[in-house]
């Protein structure tokens, strides 16, 4: 048995042990043992993924595991990449969860502790599925376990229940789409293993191929949180326990991308350009819309959830570009675009998991998620603040952060993509570049807001005032993620061979396009290279030089302290500081037409005079406009239908018997007509 198989077996065994420990042991031991085993399961997943990325492949048929079809598993470099990402996140989150769930949030209960390892295992196994039935079973198991975890805190907050309902409905509508698409594919191809699908795809009619791609693609896009199927994401991610949010946001949404790549590029073998324009357009729209909503959000975890929507949008821009270049016959550029998308997926997983864990740390210490009421945490929780800053540097896509390399590669690919002939390329690619640039610019504003308002300045509430640093296990979990961020930022070149192999596994055999050379990332077909370590080193040298020169030029005096000047206004109170809402106000005005904010001023005058005001109430909300326009009408129509249908149930048994009789008669008539 190869390393991949051994590691996956170990992962399955550890998951079983963790689930058993979570079910049977007493609370304290339960949290620790389940956490340790989950971390081990993550490590096993990471090992399997890295081995697969290194070029090992593995497959297994387990005919007795599932009735009728049996279970088929196969691991290539593409699955290996997603497996490694999920494994790394699970490893860190397992360690983090020991401290987080032990804090008495109601998360140390049997349900959560037993379900979490199963969810973690499905995250690792979904990319390994090699037949339609195995894939769907694992996919649904992932959805159900994550749903159970999302509603873990439903006793504490009513909003959790609403989020759980949205998530349950959306994820199952997605499952229906996947079921329709993949079942149709299997029927047309005449077999349900991925090998049979690959072989049968060429013989399918274009209409069938289009239907399969669009139906299943919509299901996958909804899992990736793409506009307009995103409505569950900004609800479920904030309301789930923070370590579960980290798993969902850094590992689960990636599987939507995996699905699109696996289905579109590998199983269906590419496709016409319009498929990929659709993917690219959805990605660009989600990127801009997601980051705009994040700029408006003042709930820290909601902001991070919207940012996930943005980053997965950028990833899908890369995937769409890859498919488009592939359809145009430019294999080298297609490989580059897919590599850019995958690199951004890896980077996003690292910084987003760290951001969610840090947000969880804040929640753990203060019980608050509202940025307007936080502040001043940098002095009270220095490690958390530092780690959040590191992850935010990755998220704003500026050097020397880790998000920069992926976006740089993506921009390079799109810029060179103009060499691909076609008017549609000349129109879409500049628009895609503009969308990426706009989302990068807005991301800077978003994370300046999150870090500056949430962690700097002075505390704006008693809870923030009393915040204490988190327990060491939580810090250790975050430290692991921080290490991953730093490694990805400084040496992305080490990933280059793996990315090339993953692209080859996705069916894009364009030869080797990326090379690492240890610390730099250079492209073969187009002349461009990036030296992240050099940039970081140059910045460090420049910083040291500036510091030394300033010291030398000035008089050697100790740094003095003085009161804040504030234009002579004197001691400002925390209430006068800028909040997240006020920070976002100019942006909201700029994008007024897109966001359509709602304002409501309610003035109650004193009874005797219209000029003396007793009370003024100001309400301001930035609703999700797409949701309002798209979901509300459907929901209200369904509610109306339900209300109308209640009249049918009058409570009389005679009427019900009448319905039954009529139904039988109609059925018989229909059958007679068909026969």
């Amino acid at each position, binding site marked *: 048995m190869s390393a991949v198989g051994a590691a996956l077996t170990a992962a399955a065994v550890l998951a079983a042990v963790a689930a058993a420990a979570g079910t049977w042991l007493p609370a304290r031991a339960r949290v620790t043992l389940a956490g340790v085993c989950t971390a081990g399961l993550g490590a096993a997943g990471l090992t399997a993924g890295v081995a697969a990325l290194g070029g090992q492949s593995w497959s297994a048929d387990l005919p007795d595991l599932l009735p009728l079809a049996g279970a088929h598993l196969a691991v290539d470099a593409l699955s290996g990449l997603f497996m490694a990402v999920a494994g790394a996140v699970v490893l860190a989150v397992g360690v983090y969860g020991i401290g987080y769930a032990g804090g008495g949030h109601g998360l140390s209960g049997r349900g959560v502790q037993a379900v979490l390892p199963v969810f973690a295992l499905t995250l690792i196994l979904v990319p390994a599925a090699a037949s339609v039935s195995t894939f769907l079973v694992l996919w649904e198991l992932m959805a159900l376990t994550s749903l159970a975890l999302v509603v873990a805190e439903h006793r504490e907050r009513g909003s959790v229940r609403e989020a759980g309902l949205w998530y349950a409905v959306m994820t199952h509508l997605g499952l229906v789409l996947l079921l329709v698409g993949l079942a149709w594919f299997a029927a047309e191809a005449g077999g349900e293993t991925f090998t049979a699908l690959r072989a049968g795809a060429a013989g399918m009619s274009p209409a069938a191929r289009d239907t399969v791609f669009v139906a299943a693609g919509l299901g996958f896009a909804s899992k990736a949180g793409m506009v307009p199927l995103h409505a569950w994401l900004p609800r479920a991610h904030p309301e789930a326990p923070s370590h579960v949010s980290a798993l969902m946001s850094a590992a689960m949404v990636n599987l939507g991308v995996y699905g699109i790549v696996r289905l579109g590029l590998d199983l269906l073998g590419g496709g016409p350009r319009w498929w990929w324009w659709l993917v690219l357009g959805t990605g660009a729209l989600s990127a801009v819309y997601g980051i705009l909503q994040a700029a408006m959000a003042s709930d820290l975890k909601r902001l991070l959830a919207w940012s996930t929507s943005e980053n997965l949008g950028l990833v899908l821009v890369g995937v769409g570009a890859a498919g488009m270049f592939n359809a145009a016959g430019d294999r080298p550029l297609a490989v580059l675009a897919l590599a850019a998308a995958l690199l951004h997926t890896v980077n996003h997983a690292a910084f987003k998991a760290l951001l969610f864990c840090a947000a969880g740390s804040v929640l753990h210490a203060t019980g608050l998620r509202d940025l307007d009421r936080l502040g001043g945490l940098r*002095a009270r929780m220095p490690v958390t603040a530092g780690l959040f800053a590191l992850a935010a540097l990755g998220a704003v896509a500026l050097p020397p952060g880790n998000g920069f390399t992926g976006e740089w590669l993506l921009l390079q690919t799109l810029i060179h993509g103009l060499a691909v002939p076609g008017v549609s390329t000349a129109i879409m690619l500049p628009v895609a570049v*503009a969308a990426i640039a706009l989302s990068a*610019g807005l991301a800077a504003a978003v994370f*300046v807001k999150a870090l500056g308002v949430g962690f700097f300045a002075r505390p704006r509430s008693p809870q923030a005032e009393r915040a204490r640093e988190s327990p060491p296990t939580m810090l250790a979990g975050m430290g692991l993620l921080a290490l991953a961020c730093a490694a990805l930022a400084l040496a992305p070149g080490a990933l280059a061979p793996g990315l090339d192999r993953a692209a080859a596994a996705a069916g894009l055999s364009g030869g080797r396009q990326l090379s690492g050379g240890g610390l730099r990332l250079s492209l073969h077909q187009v002349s461009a290279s990036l030296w992240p370590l050099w940039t970081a080193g140059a910045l460090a040298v420049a*910083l040291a030089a500036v510091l030394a020169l300033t010291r030398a030029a000035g008089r050697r005096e100790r740094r003095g302290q003085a009161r804040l000047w504030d234009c002579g206004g004197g001691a400002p109170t925390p209430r006068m500081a*800028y909040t997240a809402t*006020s920070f*976002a106000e100019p942006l909201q005005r700029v994008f007024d037409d897109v966001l359509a904010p709602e304002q409501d001023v309610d003035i109650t005058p004193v009874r005797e005079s219209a000029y003396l005001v007793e009370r003024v109430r100001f309400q301001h909300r930035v609703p999700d406009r797409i949701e309002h326009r798209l979901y509300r009408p459907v929901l209200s129509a369904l509610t109306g239908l339900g209300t109308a249908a209640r009249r049918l149930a009058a409570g009389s048994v005679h009427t019900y018997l009448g319905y039954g009789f009529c139904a039988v008669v109609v059925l018989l008539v229909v059958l007679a007509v068909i026969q």
Partner: protein
Amino acid sequence: MAAQVVVVVAGAPLLAGLMRQVRARMEGRAGAGVRQPWRDLRKLLRKEPVTPVGTGPAFRVAPLLLVATTAVVAALLPLVSTDTPVSGRADLIVVVALLALGTVALALAGLDTGTAFGGMGASREMTVAALVEPTILLAVFALSIPSGSTNLAAIVSGAADDPARSASPAGLLAIAALAVAVLAETGRLPVDNPSTHLELTMIHEAMVLEYAGPDLALVELGAQMRLAVLLGLLTSLFAPWGIATTATWAALAVGLALLVVKVTLLGAVLAAAEVFWAKVRLFRVPELLAGSFLLALLAVAASFFLNGR
């Protein structure tokens, strides 16, 4: 390369002084002389370093980071010569991102003070920065199409070999878009008034109100260096005549002299134009930036269709 950094550090305050002097003369004042910014910097550097109570490391590090990022950018840009030891690492996207890093650091410092003005300045600065970014990157896109690379040295030497390139419609549109973006990025009129003292209209100044002494000197120097670097970038991209393409001393000397002349001229023209401009309202700025964004998009389209690729 090191010489380039020294030239930018030494020249930036002189450029600022020159621009102030031009304005003063055109407004009928005597002016303080070209070397006044240098004297100000020296004075500030010798003062006692002071930090306001309640600020953290972000406030302390931001001025250093601002100057450091700009210095790295100054080293990367082909200002005097396209053939420097680091020209292979000089990617226009990296340059734009490094400048943005300085902006972000300063905005965080503004929020760190916890005053209303600091937050206001940071919020406005990030709004402008978020809108400038697409323009700059699209202009980069337009410029890199003819040379097939985003590498700065390749773009600049390509333009130096083929002067007609910058006179093409795509080049002209890109320069117009980039010029507006540079004005916004460096906080000049009509986006922001660098010499304002009315708090409610300030963008950049509102962020740095709490700085004093050596820190303030660094913030001022950083702002002046950014202006010098970006004007230098504009001249290199669109008027690269005489830039050294080899590493001989004579070519470098000619390149340096021409750079100084070109940047001085550009600065003087900008200062003269500013005399006749008024600052636009904050919420009219996005319209200006949207205009420049449109120009950049047109530049890409023109570049694509005219190059026939």
